[in-house]
């Protein structure tokens, strides 16, 4: 796991799951598991925007880029400083 994946994973565990004992990894299908709802997706986008210092347009918010932590990191890592 690279450092960007680690930061995303830590954010999800701490801020979105509130350290609930849910076993997730960079490969967990977050939406299939019902872990991300309509409020959490906004928090997640805001986190990624701060991390990458770039806005994420709505058209980029598709399952291909958000299915897993690994997918998010792959899509948005190149934009991070």
């Amino acid at each position, binding site marked *: 796991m690279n450092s960007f994946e680690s930061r995303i994973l830590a954010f999800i565990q701490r801020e979105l799951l509130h350290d609930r004992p849910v076993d997730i990894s960079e490969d967990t299908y977050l939406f299939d598991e019902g872990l991300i709802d309509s409020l959490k997706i906004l928090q997640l986008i805001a986190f990624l925007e701060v991390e990458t210092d770039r806005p994420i347009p*709505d058209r980029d918010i598709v*399952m291909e880029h958000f299915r897993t932590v690994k997918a998010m990191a792959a899509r948005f890592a190149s934009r991070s400083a």
Partner: protein
Amino acid sequence: MTDRLTLRGTATALPGWFDGQFRSMALEAGAVERVFPASIPGATLRRAGFFDAFPDGASPAGAGAPADSFRPPAVCYHAYAALAGGVLETPILLTAAQTCFRDADRGSDDDARLWQFTMREIVFVGAGPWVAEQRSTWTRRARAFAERLQLEAAVEPATDPFFGDVSRGRRLIQQLKHLKDELRLAAGPRTIAAASFNSHETFFGSRFGLTLGDGTVAHSGCAAFGLERWTLAFLAQRGEDAAAALLKG
């Protein structure tokens, strides 16, 4: 947005013909038919979160109607209210048709959007996998039906958000999870959404207290067919002669 539509000639019989087809499909699939009132209580729409999603609101039912009632913006809200608080030992498959009204343009795509239109809905409430299967099945049936009528059609994610434009989070979840697909039919140089296939997950189940026998919250979904839009697309693609032949059977 056009207020309302007046049909003439062959076109007058087409919405009824389409409704007959969708109704038959629903009954053959085991759906129970319901006839819902022409107005819906504000309390039901509030419980469904309608005004949160669409702050422009619904059309008031008007003089003579019960206080705090509206013209129905969709058929399925009635269904959740009718089932509210129930424990579903078996899955529920309902169908109903109704004249619906939408004040707000909903930021949607096209000028085929009417204030007053007729919708045939099939509503499914049950366990998540069963609801998902129903949604796929109805998408398949609608596509096959369009093919039988030699209509140019495509199924794609909806541009018209079920949960409204004000809730960005819900809209993005809808986009991410493909919670709303629509069948678009060519009508002249454009395409129009003639049916939609929706998954609400547990949104209405939670709000209306719909639970399954095992105590978990029921999932829901619906397939909705806009009868005027099928009519418009059929006439645009196939013409009046084909419509007359269709009606003769």
